[in-house]
């Protein structure tokens, strides 16, 4: 399952279609809060303790997060997800300029952002590079 969070339904839809072609299921949300709520109800089902470690298991294989979201922004969301899921591959997408992204705070370790409009191959490369 791949999470797509973007408040622009057109982009969310395109990303979801593309993931479908790659053979992934997607869960699409218009805001950070909605994804967090979804994780709350779906994440617990699959959470388990591994060797006494308190890391919850993640129902997601990866997440594509828009930065400019109503409410909690994409960077804050990435920080929250990183806290919970150490190995979750994430990529941030944004129409903001480099300096504008920086002004919003630092990105979690191992998370990078790409600017809209982007090449799907580039996004794919970043998202799945750790798996190759």
């Amino acid at each position, binding site marked *: 399952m791949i999470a797509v969070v973007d408040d622009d339904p*057109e*982009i969310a*839809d*395109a990303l979801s*279609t593309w993931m479908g072609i790659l053979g992934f299921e997607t869960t699409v949300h218009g805001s950070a809060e909605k994804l967090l709520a979804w994780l709350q109800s779906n994440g617990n089902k699959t959470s388990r303790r591994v060797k006494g470690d308190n890391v919850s298991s993640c129902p997601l294989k990866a997440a594509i997060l828009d930065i400019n979201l109503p409410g909690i922004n994409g960077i804050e969301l990435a920080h929250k997800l990183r806290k919970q899921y150490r190995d979750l591959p994430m990529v941030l*997408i944004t129409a903001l300029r480099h300096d*504008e992204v920086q*002004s919003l705070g630092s990105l979690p370790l191992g998370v990078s952002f790409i600017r809209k*409009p982007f090449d799907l191959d580039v996004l794919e490369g970043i998202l799945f590079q750790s798996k190759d």
Partner: protein
Amino acid sequence: MLINAVNIPTSFVIIGFLYLILPIMTWIVLNGQRSSLVSLWCGGGLSIGSGLLLISLRGFVPDWATFLLANLLIFTGYLFRIQSLRLHLTLPSWPTRWMVFAFLMFIVVFESIHLGLGDALLRTEFVFLYNVVMNLMLSLLAWRIGRRYGSSNASFIFVTYLLGGLIMMLRLIALLKGEVQADVMVANIMTTQAGIIGLIGTIATHFGYIGMTMDHLVKNETKIKTDKLVALRQSQQVIAQLDRQRSLGALSASLGHEINQPLTAILANTQIAKRVINKEPVNSAQLQNLLDKIIHNTRRANLIIERIRSFIKPANMEMGIVKVGSLVRDTVLYIKEEAMIHHIAIVFDIDNGELLVKGDVIQLSQVLLNLFRNAIEVLKQNTPRRLTISVKHIENVIVTTISDTGSGLSEEALKRAGEAFYTTKADGLGLGLSISKSIIESHHGQLLISNNEEGGACFKICLPALYHQGKLELF
């Protein structure tokens, strides 16, 4: 009989005195307009008057005074008056060194004839000659003033000096032919005519001058007023354009983000389509769907460009039916990015149903944008940062309230907000609110400015609702 009726020295005395009194009177009447033009005219008059009095005292004063000095004074008076009329015509005045040169040349010529040649007749001919030239020059200048400014008063000056010039010319011709005596003090038909015309002419020229200056003044004032109005209108346009460009600069970032959204969707869908087309068998339904999305997003991008374009172009009022709720939501898109960067929460409270007004959608969005941007500027420096935008249908009015949690407005600012060029911003022009106010007023609405009870500023845009009591309200 007429010859005997006019005593030549007496008429010189009268004209001389008139030339002293009338310039002073002119000077007093044109009080407040004592520019160099009037000073030259009146000063010239006094000079001529003194010269004429000296001539009338021929026999009682030394020869040098009644001949050389008198003529020098008259000659200088003419020069001053020519200068004055040239200035009225906005021609460049003659340089002072030329005037001094003419003055000195006059003495040299006059005295060489007198002392050098000892020819009294030639001296008189010379006196008439310069009088003819000066009178005709003044008359020509007055004619040009009358034509240029349509001033009928200038024609008094024109006619008087023309007649004066012609009579002197006839006298000169008669002198040259030896028909009359050189001595002006001996009465004959010519000197008598000159005396009468001199009397009437002196009065006519001075009243003509006062009238002409007044005409000129009134016209000038009207012209200055019109020019000012035109300049003001032009500067208002320029300022409005500047303000638009300034806002545009600030907005361009937001608009850039805005247009990247559909472009992202277009690019993604195109790349997906490429993959679909390479996969056998081709899913034509999916391909069709992707192409539809590409078309849809291209139109979306085009709409954004149109919005920018309409913002840059100074548009005339284009009245249409405006959905205020949608307009507010659409306009917020322009500031969404900025609000997010500065952690400003935007809260909507928009009534359901049709919130319709009659108005110019572009102008109204400009007002909203201006108020939103002001609020963001204030909120950047305050916490908490909340911008509440509500649209309510209250009785027959659609009320859009833009309320922030900033520091609010001071009493003076509340009183003066909306006044052109009043600003509390260091880099502000103080035009945003005044333009907004005039736009809302031109929509038969009102822009109310107040402070919230709990702090922060509150702007209310009140516009007449399009439909009320089941009837279409036209205004």
